[in-house]
């Protein structure tokens, strides 16, 4: 009961503030593990033909996503969905477009074992890492083990991903009262709320905390079969339902939507408002909103500068 009361008070106070919260400046992770994870993340040794690393489709230096419509992995095979950004992924409530992974560890296992991506299996990965003297040495240093098992490999990668946050976006600074937004940005934010984008794009990741259907007011038609929420729930009503993506660093993660159908933010906003808000937002307002979205681009994760 006490917990409930605390929660209620907490919520009332929170609610008086903005529905978007800034990325914490202090994040909790084990640096040794994260740096080892970084090495693994960057290393194509983790794919069957040694062509693909995690970095191949998640360019952490520029948005953390893939600029290609679908990612290309093992033997140049193509993926079946647009690669979502790995930046701030730890703030998403579930992983993948359709939420099939509960957390980052479960997620990391996905691409590694996907035949179209890294095309590995845990045993082979263990073998590759244990055959590498330098990896063995580092794992021994960090985890104090003689044999590196798959769980530890995932743990290291996940630790790195936990460090991939982009704090200090202009908007975050504004939320913290450190700076003022420009009039244009501020107007964009007001429109963002006014048109109802905020209803789904809220929270620390400005999205990433709920599922939503593509095409509520007008159907969103796409010929390709994408793995949506119904793949998990086997419910017809969940067709075309996806996780609401984050809008952080959105200017760097084009193309947009799961099907990469929106090449620009203008198109994306236009499409979203038409299908999901039942509104046609004037081009002029879209421009304001984009200026607001630009203020969501944060600093590069510090871990990328660390060796």
């Amino acid at each position, binding site marked *: *009961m006490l*917990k*409930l009361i605390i*929660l*209620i008070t907490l*919520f009332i106070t*929170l*609610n008086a503030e*903005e*529905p*978007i*919260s800034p990325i914490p400046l202090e994040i909790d992770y084990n640096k040794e593990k994260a740096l080892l994870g970084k090495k693994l993340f960057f290393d194509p040794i983790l794919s069957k033909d040694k062509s693909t690393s995690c970095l191949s489709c998640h360019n952490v230096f520029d948005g953390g996503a893939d600029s290609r419509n679908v990612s290309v992995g093992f033997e140049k095979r193509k993926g079946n969905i647009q690669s979502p950004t790995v930046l701030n992924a730890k*703030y998403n*409530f579930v992983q993948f477009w359709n939420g099939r992974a509960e957390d980052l560890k479960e997620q990391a296992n996905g691409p590694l074992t996907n035949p179209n991506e890294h095309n590995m299996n845990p045993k082979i990965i263990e073998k590759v890492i244990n055959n590498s003297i330098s990896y063995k040495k580092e794992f021994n240093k960090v985890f104090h083990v003689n044999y590196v098992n798959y769980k530890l490999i995932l743990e290291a990668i996940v630790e790195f991903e936990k460090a991939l946050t982009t704090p200090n976006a202009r908007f975050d600074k504004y939320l913290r009262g450190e700076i003022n937004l420009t009039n244009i940005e501020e107007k964009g934010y007001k429109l963002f*709320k*006014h048109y*109802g984008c*905020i*209803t*789904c794009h*809220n*929270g*620390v*990741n400005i999205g990433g*905390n*709920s*599922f*939503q*259907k593509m095409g*509520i*007011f007008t159907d969103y038609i796409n010929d390709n079969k994408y793995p949506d929420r119904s793949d998990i*729930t086997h419910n017809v*009503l969940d067709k075309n*339902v996806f996780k609401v993506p984050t809008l952080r660093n959105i200017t760097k993660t084009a193309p947009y939507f799961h099907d990469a159908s929106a090449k620009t933010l203008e198109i994306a906003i236009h499409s979203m408002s038409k299908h*999901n*808000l*039942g*509104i046609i937002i004037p081009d002029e307002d879209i421009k304001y909103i984009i200026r607001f979205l630009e203020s969501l681009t944060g600093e590069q994760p510090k871990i990328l500068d660390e060796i």
Partner: protein
Amino acid sequence: MKISKLLFIFIITGILSFIAIINFYFIQKDFTQKHKEFLININNLENSYADITNLILKNSIYVYINQDNIAITNKQLKQNFKKLQNSEILRDSSYADVKVNVDYLQKCMEESLQNVEIFLRINASVKNSLLFLSRHVEDAKILEDYDQKELLKARIILKHFNDTKKLQDLIYVTNKDYLLKSESTNKNVQRYIEDFNIHSNFLMANYPSFINITKKILENKARHQRIHMIKEEFSEISLHDFKALDKFATFLFTLFFFSFLTIIILLIKYQRENRKLQETYSSLEYSHTYDQLTELYNRRKFELDIEDQNKFKNPSLIIVNINDFRYINDIYGNDIGNILLKEFSKFIENQIEKFYESSIYRLDGDEFGIIFNNLNQNRILNIANNLEQSIINNSFIINNIKLEVRVNIAINNVKPILENADLALKQIKKSNKSNIGIFDEEQHLKQNVEENMKMVQTIKEALLDNRIIPFFQPIINLQASKIEKYEALVRLRLNDGTILQPFQFLEIAQKSSQYHEITKIMIEKTILVAIKYPKYRFSINMSMQDISDYKITDMLFNLLEKYKDTNAKIDIELLESEHLNDIKVVKKFIKKLHTYGSYILVDDFGTGYSNFSYFSELDIDIVKIDGSIVKEITNNKRKFHMLKSIKEFANGMDIKTVSEFVETKEIAQKLKSIGATYAQGYYFSEPLEQPLDDDKVVI
């Protein structure tokens, strides 16, 4: 012995129950922990549900809201459920029903999570559409200008939509005309209406499921009932478990305290018995060293001192014997006799005191021994003469009676010192020439050899003529006033009918090969008599040396085996000696004897080598309390106390006692009054040639 065994058992029980209590404490703690864990888990689950309900309510009210917390709370719900499901107590089979219900809750939870997901989806669009319509109607300048009627309608429709959401009641939107329609040809009017209708349509289509899903989340009766059921079921089972634990705890604590109390009681008892034993020991120790009456050293002490090479390097002994002391007793009574002995002892002590290297002993009733060290024969003879003279010159006045005491004094320094002195004393008495005599070795040897040779011949003839015979002295059960046993005693009958006592021939027989034959005859004849008198038990004397002699024991067991199917009841009386070299042999003997239903008696307990430690080691049935104690219980408190102590001590170990040398009625009655079981002695009967047919006895 019994107490220590009991003590051991209860200490073990105590320790075991204590360990069980400790163990039980941990089990109970563990159980309580698990119990608490489960209750906490189920409360946490309920809390998570309450949190979600609260967040959903807020989300439906506020337009702009951060939904992160819903996602977080959903995760918490899942975690809390997993914790509940993994509650350790559910692994216990008695909670299987609870587990089934908990597992069922999983369905409820999955449904809840799905409902939340659906709610968030519909809620977002419903909120947006309602917001859009509100602003659209506010910003309706175009309708104001062109179609006031539709503007009014738009406001009514919006009101209905708002009411529906606020009141969560579909009645406001059923069968209502909810779309705008205008005759106006103005493009902007039509565009306005088109926008309005898109959202109006959307709300009409989605309100039912929105309200439905909201209600589903807010009032989940099935889940509430299920949780309630789990709680009830759980507390019922756990109450039962706690009660069982309580009972077990009570049992363990009772057992523990019972053992504890018993141990204390037993320890106290043990302590008491120990003290009694100590007392008996010390009084025995005193009586082993000192003569009770005269407080001089006693005969045992004399024997020890003689054996001790360091005490007297060059000893000479004089024996002072009071002439005709028996008559003093007969004429003046035992009391006067005893006082005289005391006075006489003091007198000798005073006379001898100045010769420091000497000790005085009371060797027998009227016989005193004095050992001198490093004194030549002449000096000793001088002392003896002086002593005799001073005794003659002294009158002992007791109770106004003047007593004249005459003594014979024997002197000897030849080993064996006492035996030779005795011989000298006998010589004095026989010759009647002088009152003082010195042992003459040469003369003695001559005489001795002659006598021995004669005795060997006598025994030989007696064996041939079947004149080795057992005599039987009855042993009386004092409480039942009847004869229960006989002690068989060896006798040798001479041709003229004179009966020889064992001390007169047995020692010589032992040195020849005749001893074995005598023992055999004794056993066999006793058995034959025992067959004739099946109502009595018969005991045969054997020494420790006899038991160590396998020829004798084999013979005994052969005879017992031979007559085993008769109704003869044969017991063995062990004569103690210092020759108890191998206690294992004795133990083995006793064990084997017991298989024939025979008892083992220990003779002469309370003097000589009788030792309490025998009794812890040997499985003895009866002890015979020595005559030197029994004889004096009516006039010597110390002896009476000793007898009682021995009796109680024996009782405590389930050993019966026989009091020997009961010579007067008083002694017999005193023994009977303190509950002594058996007695024998001249008061009842001297040894007889045949057991009596009538077993009745008057005490």
